[in-house]
């Protein structure tokens, strides 16, 4: 019997707000333990939550970027459970009325084959803190810096048919959220977290098999590893005629396996109920429409536009829409007046190559798109040779700086003054009598050899057009 896996992902994504969801503490990554806390996020008795509207707007944008329906009225619910990293003894979340529902993610299964997976819901919630259990310490420690940080949970339908699809889906989802400015989606910093629901069933069967939830998948690489292991494990159980138990399992990075965390019978009853501290919140259709209108262009739309409007190749368009900062930089150069194709070549050939070599981050680029445009303008104006322009750009990428100042510092500006070049031309002509004779004897290509000699003598800085004119004039004389 051939089995097929059915996969759905639940993704938690940290919203890129300055402050937490219900208080004004800093929400960013890092900080000394318990340095970003206040009476509210430590659940001091008597404190109350007040919604951070920036977080709400980012959550709405997430829904819009993923083509969801967004609710115009919203409520929060309490999810009750005890754990030391959960200060209030409940998490403020959304239960039966999520902010956004029924969206979709388009992703590429293989080159040219696109598939669409549905999103069931997106809801807002606050993060818990972090419980630490250091070796050699009899007690546990709690860091509440993360407690109250705003998240959206994006629950996908079980539309994914393989670990590779799951990975491609997650990449596409991540790119969409990053391009919309909703989150940096950095799995290493925990601003993107992924749990997977996996089951297997005989190929062709409509009913789902028993679902297992896999948690603690903390990198893109592990999405595929965890799913591959889990699908194989379930396949073996089926092959042995054993039942699959509905449970939550944890992925172990070092072994590449999953281990049982809790069975369904022991599942928590979270006793959800509407949070009486947060009354019905009027999101408002006008707000949704304002955010929809202001939504940045979807990366797939950019990819299409780069090809159709700007004539880029599929490959170029892909590379330039990999990261929001790359697209921003590229569009900046084009907006400054450079032909898109030329801009694409420079960015791929020089900027991205440099970042690849130095393992740099485009977000931290030392050169602006305006500076790159100015540099290329110098080449177009024959102030720099193509090779010199590349050298100047390299220096700019390494150390920052304006193109002209950098070119001057590197002494790479072209010599275009015929007076300054005449002496060199005379000297070469005097030296290369054989080549001069060849040229005068009708061998046209000999001119290029002479040009090369002069260029060499000027260390590449002479303007070849000026030199050529000088040579012709002097040879005819």
């Amino acid at each position, binding site marked *: 019997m051939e089995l097929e896996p059915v996969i759905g992902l639940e993704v938690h994504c940290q919203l890129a707000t300055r402050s937490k969801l219900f208080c004004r503490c800093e929400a960013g990554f890092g900080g000394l333990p318990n340095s970003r806390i206040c009476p509210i996020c430590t659940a*001091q*008795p*008597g*404190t*109350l939550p*007040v919604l951070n509207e920036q977080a709400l707007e980012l959550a709405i944008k997430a829904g819009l970027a993923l083509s969801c329906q967004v609710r115009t009225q919203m409520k929060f619910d309490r999810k009750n459970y005890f754990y030391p990293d959960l200060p209030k003894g409940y998490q403020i979340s959304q239960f039966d009325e999520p902010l956004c529902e029924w969206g979709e993610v388009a992703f590429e299964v293989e080159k040219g084959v696109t598939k669409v997976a549905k999103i069931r819901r997106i809801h807002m919630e606050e993060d818990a803190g972090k419980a630490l259990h250091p070796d050699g310490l009899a007690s546990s420690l709690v860091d509440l810096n993360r407690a109250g940080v705003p998240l959206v949970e994006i629950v996908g339908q079980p539309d994914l048919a393989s670990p590779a699809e799951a990975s491609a889906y997650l990449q596409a989802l991540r790119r969409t959220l990053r391009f919309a400015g909703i989150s940096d989606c950095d799995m290493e910093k925990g601003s993107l977290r992924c749990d997977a629901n996996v089951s297997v069933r005989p190929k062709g069967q409509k009913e789902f098999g028993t679902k297992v939830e896999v948690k603690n998948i903390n990198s893109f690489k592990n999405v595929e590893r965890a799913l591959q292991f889990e699908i194989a494990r379930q396949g073996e159980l089926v092959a042995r005629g054993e039942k699959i138990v509905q449970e939550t399992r944890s992925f172990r990075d070092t072994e590449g396996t999953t281990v049982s965390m809790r069975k369904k019978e022991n599942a928590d009853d979270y006793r*959800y109920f509407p949070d*009486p501290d947060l009354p019905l919140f009027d999101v408002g259709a006008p707000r949704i429409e304002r955010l929809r209108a202001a939504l940045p262009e979807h990366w797939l739309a950019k990819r299409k536009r780069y090809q159709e409007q700007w004539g880029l190749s599929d490959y170029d368009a892909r590379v330039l829409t990999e990261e929001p900062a790359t697209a921003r930089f590229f569009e900046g150069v084009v907006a400054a007046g450079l032909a898109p194709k030329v801009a694409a070549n420079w960015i791929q050939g020089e900027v991205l190559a440099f970042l690849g070599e130095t393992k740099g981050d485009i977000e931290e680029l030392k050169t602006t798109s305006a500076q790159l445009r100015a540099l290329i303008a110098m080449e177009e104006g024959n102030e720099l040779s193509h090779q010199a322009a590349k050298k100047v750009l390299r220096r700019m990428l390494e150390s920052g700086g304006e193109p002209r100042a950098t070119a001057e510092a590197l002494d790479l500006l072209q010599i275009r003054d015929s007076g300054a070049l005449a002496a060199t031309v005379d000297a070469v002509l005097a030296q290369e009598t054989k080549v001069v004779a060849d040229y005068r004897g009708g061998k046209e290509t000999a001119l290029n050899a002479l040009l090369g000699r002069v260029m060499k003598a000027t260390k590449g800085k002479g303007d070849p057009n000026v030199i050529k004119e000088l040579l012709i004039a002097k040879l005819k004389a």
Partner: protein
Amino acid sequence: MPATPTSPAWTRSARAIVAAVRSGSVRARAVADHYLARIERDDPLVHAFLHVDPAAVRAQADALDARIARGETAGALLGVPVAVKDNLCAVGSPTTCASKILEGYRPPYDATVVERLRAAGAIVLGKTNLDEFAMGASTENSGFGATRNPHDLKRVPGGSSGGSAAAVAAGFAPLALGSDTGGSVRQPAALCGVVGLRPTYGAVSRYGLVAFASSLDQVGPLALNVDDCTLLMEVIGGHDPRDSTSRAGAFGGPTAGDALAGLRIGIPAEYRSDALDPQVRAAVARVEQLAVAAGARLVPLELPLTQYAIPTYYLVVTSEASSNLARFDGVRYGPRGEGSDLSGMYGATRGGRFGDEVKRRIMLGTYALSAGYFDAYYKKALQVRECIGREFAAAFAQCDVLLGPTTPTPAFPLGEKSDDPVQMYLCDVFTAPAPLAGLPALSFPCGKTPTGLPIGAQLQGPCGSDGRLLAIARALERQLALDLSPLEAPRGA
């Protein structure tokens, strides 16, 4: 009864204190010293307070006197000591909610109402006793000993704001803050013979009020008379951006003109049940007669859902409380119980330190919210709550306010109901409906039993009618012409 000569005249009202302090005829320090002396002398009998720090009180008074000496005499409560229920956070004093689980806890911030008291020139006099986490109607459920009614020390002061009501009645403080979830301001006000207002839900910030049942909790003023109650309400009321359920203008403000002429007073048949003590019934009937004599009209009507208010109320409050009290886990503050593992620590902390009534309500609420029971209990209760709100709305189409008794009986003896939670819950029969609908309600003294036990009458109005209720109560208070000065000493020792 004439005021006895031992206390200065200004002890009869907070307004008198403000006037005396502002004019310079009495120093804030002298006011503070008077109340501290009263507390020192008589509170061992009454046990209205859980925490009083005389040095800190005198320091606040001295700071005020220094300000006044510089000519800074602003502040609606200038120099007035205010007793604060111990479920309101105030920097510089513990906040325990009368629970051993918060023993020694000192909040790092002031509740909004406390902040507003301080800004108005009031002195935070001390923290008053309550039923643990405001769960009770007698102040016997305190983890630190019961409060007694200063009118008869063998009887309860009511609850849960029993400490605040007793403090005002006993002359320990001219004003007090309480909190009202199902009657916790009005019922003790009635049993102690003082005025207590439960404001419209949202009229007063809950920020810094330790939550019992968030959708019903409201901070409310207690005072010797209606004018003082109004004064305190004006200081603590108003929108607070730190409380998402607070609303601007919910208080309504006072109304001008004759409050009684042409007033339509609804008299619900359900408030005249046979269970009502005849003395209470007679006292309320007298209020009705006085109102009519002053030009009001009585409108008999029915509120048949009143009988469902208590079960509805107890499902809502226990559900919310089970969640609100989850934070008391021994992890971040308060005493921590010893356990060999996490659940052992939780068990030792919560099992060892919550009182029986609190545990009972947490268990009831946990049950009501559980999968499989949610629809039958919590959800059903919310539906009935909606119906009760609609029934009130229909009543207020026929009348302006509702009048009735605050409690079925005067103060009952200590211990009488403490073994029977259901009997205790029935104390809330007249006070629980209004909170379910978010309505303002006010209890004011309307007489005494022959043995001297106070009786309270209750006015209820539509949302935002707080100011009007106060104006009506003030007019009735004049008609009643009772002696409203505080006791010179507790009775029945």
